[in-house]
């Protein structure tokens, strides 16, 4: 078994190295998990600061704080950072910490690759953020970087942007190869696929999605690079290319990408709900099949982002129905979570509060998604704040809340210290109120026709926008409280037990809190009955 972590033999039996080199050279899944999570936390505040600039500008109609050019850079980089710098790295961090402990493996299958996948990420975002100080300013063409806005009309820094996207893609692909290889080869004996914890399942499928679509994204930016510098015409209408082709390629990546940002959340929420309901998850098998079918369907719905480009009617219908079909497996999951809670002996610790809020608010996002999926209706909703409301509901109280819930749930395990429950609940209620204050009114202004990505708006949207901005500032501040709660737990928290939560099931809870630097060097005995999580 120890041959698995080749080149790792020597430091098997002692703890981590000292000082900064511990973090630079580490191949330990727990260290790398922490690195990813802290990186994501820092990026959350950088991307969040950009959101604050956006909301400050939109506090009142008219143009007051930033120039329209800078506003565009804020919108673009906020989106890029939140997607590629916060949500994705946080999930990878959780995967690193949890997958080996949940399947009873000593480490990830490819520890050195793991180190590399992490350390190229700060480099990528360093490059992206450096463009703010270059001539022409940072990328300003939206996180979806539609050609020709991102090619013929782009600032010269677009080349750095392309480079950064390539690195982020490489990092994700290497991470995914590692996850799949670990799960397929290193499970403790007796842990069959259908006995794996749901978080592991959700990540296995997510990793396959990443391997399928990140290379396509790499292809898209490579084509942009060639159009810009080598005179090709992939997307240049003047040379016989087609800008609509860009949208097809982008969304072939982009739609599976949005599921990459939600599937691991499904896994997390399943664990938390069963723990605090003190019941095994309802319908484990159907949960697995639901995740798999959502992933498969996500490849055939991409053009629902492009209903207005002028598709033939057959195309509109196909993409409309295939999109609506996704609501079925998604509904199965929601009903399973509700059934798990039904007649359970529920308690409402902070992770559970975030998980329940996830179920409720993610469902609102799913329902607005269904409205957008109606092709004729989308002609009105497209590119309005209604779309912004939709994807923020699935991504903030969806993906982000699941990550926050996971941190509260596993933090005692990782650090060995409990967080302050009162402060955690305060953080929850502040976040819950402010997230709805921020994103719910966006539905109304969107339906009334307020376009997205514009730094100014018509008078009649003023009241709602002021409410939205107040909500956004409050939400931003609440996350500082989150940082405080985490730091307080690490430095002043009460000792946690190994089990931590009364109802928690799964291999990671059989370890000490914090777990030893190297765990499961001999695989656990599953016959003792603690397999399913």
């Amino acid at each position: 078994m120890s041959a698995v972590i080749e080149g790792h033999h020597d430091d098997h039996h002692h703890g981590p190295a000292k000082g900064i080199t511990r973090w630079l050279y580490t191949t330990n899944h727990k260290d790398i998990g922490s690195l990813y999570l802290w990186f994501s936390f820092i990026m959350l505040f950088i991307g969040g600061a950009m959101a604050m600039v956006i909301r400050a500008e939109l506090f009142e109609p008219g143009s007051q704080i930033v120039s329209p050019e800078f506003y565009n850079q804020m919108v673009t980089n906020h989106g890029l950072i939140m997607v590629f710098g916060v949500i994705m790295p946080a999930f990878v961090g959780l995967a690193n910490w949890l997958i080996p402990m949940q399947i009873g493996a000593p480490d990830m299958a490819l520890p050195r690759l793991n180190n590399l996948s992490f350390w190229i990420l700060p480099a990528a975002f360093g490059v992206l953020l450096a463009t703010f100080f270059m001539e022409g300013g940072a990328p300003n063409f939206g996180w979806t970087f539609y050609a020709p806005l991102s090619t013929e009309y782009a600032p010269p820094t677009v080349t750095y942007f392309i480079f950064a996207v390539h690195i982020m893609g490489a990092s994700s692909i290497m991470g995914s190869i590692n996850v799949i290889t670990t799960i397929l080869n290193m499970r403790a004996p007796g842990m069959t696929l259908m006995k794996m914890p749901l978080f592991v399942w959700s990540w296995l499928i997510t990793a396959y999605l990443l391997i399928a679509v990140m290379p396509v994204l790499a292809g898209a930016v490579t084509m942009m690079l060639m159009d810009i510098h080598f005179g090709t015409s992939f997307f240049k209408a003047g040379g016989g290319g087609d800008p609509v082709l860009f949208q097809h390629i982008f969304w072939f990546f982009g739609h599976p990408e949005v599921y990459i940002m939600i599937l691991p959340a499904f896994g997390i929420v399943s664990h938390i709900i069963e723990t605090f309901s003190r019941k095994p998850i309802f319908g484990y098998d159907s949960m697995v099949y639901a995740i798999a079918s959502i992933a498969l369907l996500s490849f055939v719905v991409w053009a629902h982002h492009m209903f207005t480009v002028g598709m033939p009617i057959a195309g509109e219908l196909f993409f409309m129905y295939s999109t609506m079909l996704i609501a079925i497996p998604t509904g199965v999951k929601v009903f399973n979570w509700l059934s798990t809670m039904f007649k359970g002996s529920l308690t409402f610790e902070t992770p559970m509060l975030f998980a329940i809020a996830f179920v409720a608010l993610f469902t609102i996002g799913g329902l607005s998604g269904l409205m957008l999926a109606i092709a004729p209706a989308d002609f009105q909703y497209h590119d309005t704040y209604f779309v912004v409301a939709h994807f923020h509901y699935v991504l903030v109280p969806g993906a982000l809340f699941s990550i926050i819930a996971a941190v509260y749930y596993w933090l005692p395990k990782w650090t060995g210290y409990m967080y302050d429950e009162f402060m955690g609940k305060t953080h929850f209620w502040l976040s819950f109120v402010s997230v709805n204050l921020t994103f719910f009114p966006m539905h109304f202004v969107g339906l009334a026709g307020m376009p997205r990505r514009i730094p100014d708006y018509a008078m009649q949207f003023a009241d709602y926008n002021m409410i939205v901005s107040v909500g956004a500032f409050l939400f931003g501040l609440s996350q500082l409280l989150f940082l405080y709660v985490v730091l307080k737990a690490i430095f002043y928290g009460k000792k946690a037990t190994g089990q931590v939560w009364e109802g928690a099931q799964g291999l990671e809870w059989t370890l000490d809190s914090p777990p030893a630097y190297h765990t499961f060097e001999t695989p656990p005995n599953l016959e003792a009955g603690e397999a399913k999580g």
Partner: protein
Amino acid sequence: MSSIKKSVSKLFLATVGMFLFGFALVPIYDVFCEITGLNGKVTGPTFSEYEDIGNREIKITFTTTNNNGMPWFFDSDRSQMKVKTGEQNLMSYVFTNTTDKPMIAQAIPSVSPGKGAQYFHKTECFCFEQQYLEPGESISIPLKFVIDPDLPEDISSLALGYTLFDITKDQMTKQASN
């Protein structure tokens, strides 16, 4: 642990495969558009003669647009004509370089409704040719076309739009990188 090596090499191959697939989407998309006429895309010069020419009269509208910042004069002789299906028709377009620099341009066609694009056959055209004009030079280029008698009954008029692009700079970079 050769099973790990096996997993890694399979996944690596899948990655490379998907990267190539991304590029394969370009020709797939073009072929798809050509077959379905999606996007109003039209093919280059084709030659077709019809035995049964039908006798429907179709109204054709010609539009010309200059892309952002393209200063040339660009127009068709007439803006509308009525044609019979299956018959050869002629239209001509004038290009004038109104600037004091030599320039290269390319006109890109599009037919609407998109469904009709595949029935609009050009037998001689400048569709995919680049026009080089000296300062002040002007030229008139013919377009010959036939409307396929199989044009669906519910289409009684078609519009052929040309957008003129300035590709001088692209041609320069292409030459520079060769």
